[in-house]
């Protein structure tokens, strides 16, 4: 795999992934915007720096496992996987279309490298815990990463898995909560309050870290250290901004489950470019080498 070590490279990749998400969603005409944009930094860090994986050998036994529990944010995982080399980037534009491997919610057996089928919420952590339990039993070194949304933690199945992982001290299990405070019908604390989430996990005998989930430095530092996690499973509560990078989407729950229209997409792409220029100056040519699909194919 092509590992990116420089912060500037990781940040640029995250922005390309954001652009790809916008291009995919506008083409698909349905899908989720908020969560995928908010998690672009974490998925970039995982696929381009943290995970042990080989896009050319998706079944390699020594790979880490990445379980996406909140399947509806799959556009960000698809975009990260395509950029990492699992499949041609052009295929991203088939999202949600008839015959695609990129189902509206992930289907494991359709897409090599996708570790599980998900969509119905609250079941991913349990599957990740099952994997971690088996690896521990067989004294294998694989680490299991599990991405969860905050909204899905309304589900009982999730907390059953929290107890199971703590009981078996699954220190090879690293869960990441996308703590963006939105779910379909509104703010998580109004729909079904979760706070204080960190203290809940502490009380359930987990190690807990709270980070800024859009800060690449914090993400890389925390995920790298997570490999040395011991004694208990680890929950990383990543505070993220849903719709990150697109001003009119940020922190607005109404963008949880809908795609941008064409004009909105143009504006979104312009904002992502603008934020880039603002942060790192003139980057445009270098960025084109990464072939964002809105340029490469349109």
């Amino acid at each position: 795999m092509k590992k990116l070590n420089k912060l500037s490279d990781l940040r640029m990749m995250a922005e390309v992934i954001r652009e790809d998400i916008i291009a995919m969603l506008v083409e698909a005409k349905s899908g989720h915007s908020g969560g995928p944009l908010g998690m672009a930094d974490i998925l970039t860090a995982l696929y381009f720096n943290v995970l042990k994986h080989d896009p050319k050998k998706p079944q390699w036994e020594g790979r880490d496992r990445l379980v996406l529990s909140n399947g509806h944010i799959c556009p960000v995982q698809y975009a990260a996987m395509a950029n990492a080399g699992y499949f041609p980037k052009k295929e991203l534009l088939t999202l949600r279309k008839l015959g695609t491997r990129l189902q509206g919610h992930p289907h494991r057996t359709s897409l090599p490298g996708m570790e599980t089928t998900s969509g119905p919420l609250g079941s991913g952590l349990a599957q990740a815990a099952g994997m971690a339990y088996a690896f521990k039993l067989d004294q294998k070194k694989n680490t299991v990463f599990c991405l969860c949304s905050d909204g899905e933690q309304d589900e009982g199945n999730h907390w059953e898995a929290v107890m199971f992982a703590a009981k078996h001290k699954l220190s090879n299990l690293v869960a990441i909560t996308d703590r963006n405070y939105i779910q379909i019908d509104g703010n998580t604390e109004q729909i079904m309050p979760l706070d204080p989430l960190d203290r809940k996990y502490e009380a359930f005998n987990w190690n807990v870290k709270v980070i800024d989930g859009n800060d690449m430095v914090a993400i890389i530092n925390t995920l790298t250290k997570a490999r040395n996690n011991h004694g208990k499973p680890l929950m990383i509560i990543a505070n993220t901004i849903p719709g990150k990078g697109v001003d009119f989407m940020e922190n607005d729950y109404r963008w949880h489950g809908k795609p941008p229209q064409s004009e909105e997409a143009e504006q979104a792409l312009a904002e992502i470019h603008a934020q880039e220029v603002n942060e790192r100056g003139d980057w445009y040519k270098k960025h084109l080498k990464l072939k964002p699909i809105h340029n490469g194919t349109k």
Partner: protein
Amino acid sequence: MVTGTRNISNLNRYTMELNKLKGLNNKLYLNFYHERIPTRNGYGDALVKLGRNKNIMVCCADLKESTRVQNFAEKFPKQYVEMGVAEQNLVTVASGLSAAGKIPFVSSYAMFCPGRCWEQIRTTICYNDRNVKIIGAHAGISVGPDGATHQALEDIAIMRALPNMIVVVPADYEQTKKATQALAHFSGPAYMRFAREKTEQMTTAKTPFTIGKAQVLKQGKDIALIGAGPVVYGCLVAANMLQEKGFNALVINCHTIKPLDHATILMAAKKCKKIITVEEAQITGGLGGAIAEFLSEVYPTKIKRVGMKDRFGESGDPDELLKVFGFSAEHVYKEAMKMLGEK
């Protein structure tokens, strides 16, 4: 338990007479002897042998003793996972174990698993194509005094509706043992259900068992009695009663409801033109439903479904319940006589 003739003298009478049934299939090495054993014991005994394979695991939701996995847990503690009273976690953790190369058998009461966790089974095991075996114990009305909350009658229907899932309902102890072994060697999602009570023995160690291959226990031409589970014994008893009246019934043990053995069912329909299906489950969506769906498309045949008639059970002695709700051999016999009287 299926006969509704729990009293020993009756049972002995039936058992002795079953050996004299005309047209018994001698390739199946059937033997009727008066010892009743719960089917679930066959599951437990088979698991203890399977445990030598380190990848075989058993997950249980706080029902170790009654689902008969205690011996496995004692003999192979590392391969046993106690899940607590959490059936959604039971099946989703099992999906994860399977992802890492294990072959998990998950044990609970059928009412709770698959009853409580159907969507998890659908998404994380069937659609996800994971090699997980779901074992529903204490199925049927014969659970008895616990009442309707614990009498799983819809499990066959909800599991049968799932793509990728196979559904096995073994008829007795020995067959449950064989079915457990067969499931361990079959790669893919599977559901097997059994009953709580001790039930009569028909098959022996020599009786073959193949998933998806129904067994013709007794040849006949006048009416086909097709059962799944311990009620198959009741079908044989009913066949014996019919024999006394001069009718020759075909009896089939349809232990695999999905995939249904189309060839054998079609043969029975063509030969007998009349079918009675018997199962300890709702008449909608189970064995009777599966056979009716199949035959209505290829060879429309008069079918009477014996089972629970779209209602809930209640507390009571298993024998009383089997009789009251119409699962007994006498009931099957009466339904058969009605059909045979029709032109």
